[in-house]
């Protein structure tokens, strides 16, 4: 978080406390994961963008070993940019080798981005 602190200071918004900023920052993407044998369910809430995608990438890398079915629940994902698509794509590539991946409940906005970018054909969307 050091970079964000520095950045915060440079930009000089002294009126907001560092703690409040950190809280808000972390809340931009919430990741819940539940592993049951080879079944892994990952629920995403908030925004999957340039800033938050590394968090998801790290999480996936840490838990994907031995997973045969990976389910993403996107019902609370409001926003996805190309950085987020990149992380989902690399998860898909791993799962193509060791099992399968399912994308559940995308919101209308996120579904539209999958459609426009051709990812609707790559992901199994339910």
């Amino acid at each position, binding site marked *: 978080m050091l*970079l*964000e602190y*520095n*950045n915060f200071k440079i*930009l000089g918004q002294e009126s907001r406390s560092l703690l409040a900023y950190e809280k808000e*920052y972390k809340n931009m993407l919430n990741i819940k994961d539940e592993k049951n044998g080879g079944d892994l369910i990952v629920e995403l809430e908030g925004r999957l*963008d*340039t*800033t938050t995608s590394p968090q998801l990438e790290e999480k996936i890398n840490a838990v994907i070993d031995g997973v045969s079915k990976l389910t993403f629940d996107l019902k609370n994902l*409001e*926003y996805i*940019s*190309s*950085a987020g*698509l*990149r992380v989902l*794509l690399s998860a*898909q*590539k791993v799962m*193509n080798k060791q099992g399968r991946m399912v994308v559940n409940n995308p919101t209308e*906005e996120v579904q539209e*981005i999958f459609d*426009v*970018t*051709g990812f609707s*054909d*790559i992901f199994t969307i339910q």
Partner: protein
Amino acid sequence: MKKSFECEATIENLEKVMRFVEGELEAQDCDRAHIMQITLAVEEIYVNIAHYAYGKLDKEGKTIPDTGIGPMELDLMTDGGQVYLTFKDEGVPYNPLEREKPDITLSAEDREIGGLGIFMAKKSMDEITYDYKDGKNILTLMKHI
């Protein structure tokens, strides 16, 4: 109405840029769907500038990402039912619109993410124009709202 935002083009400043754009559009009573499409384009364009505009060049003249920092200016203007966003940077002359369109029909194994950002920006805006003037890359995004 015209508002400007200036910062060093770094990934760390992305959130500030997004907050600026979102805040201004909300103040204009722009609806959620439009705000999302516009901020998506802003993220993709800004991130490209942050990674590449001030990067050093390798032997083949290709930009090495994240090897330099410089200023970026974003003007947001609304005019009737249209919103214009103009990005200016003083980096290497680069027209992202000339970038080859990604093949969006490839399978997961063959898909590449490069070029997808600008493609998504084009899809979510109504018009994007590029100009190079007075040593600046000037990219203007327009959307009917």
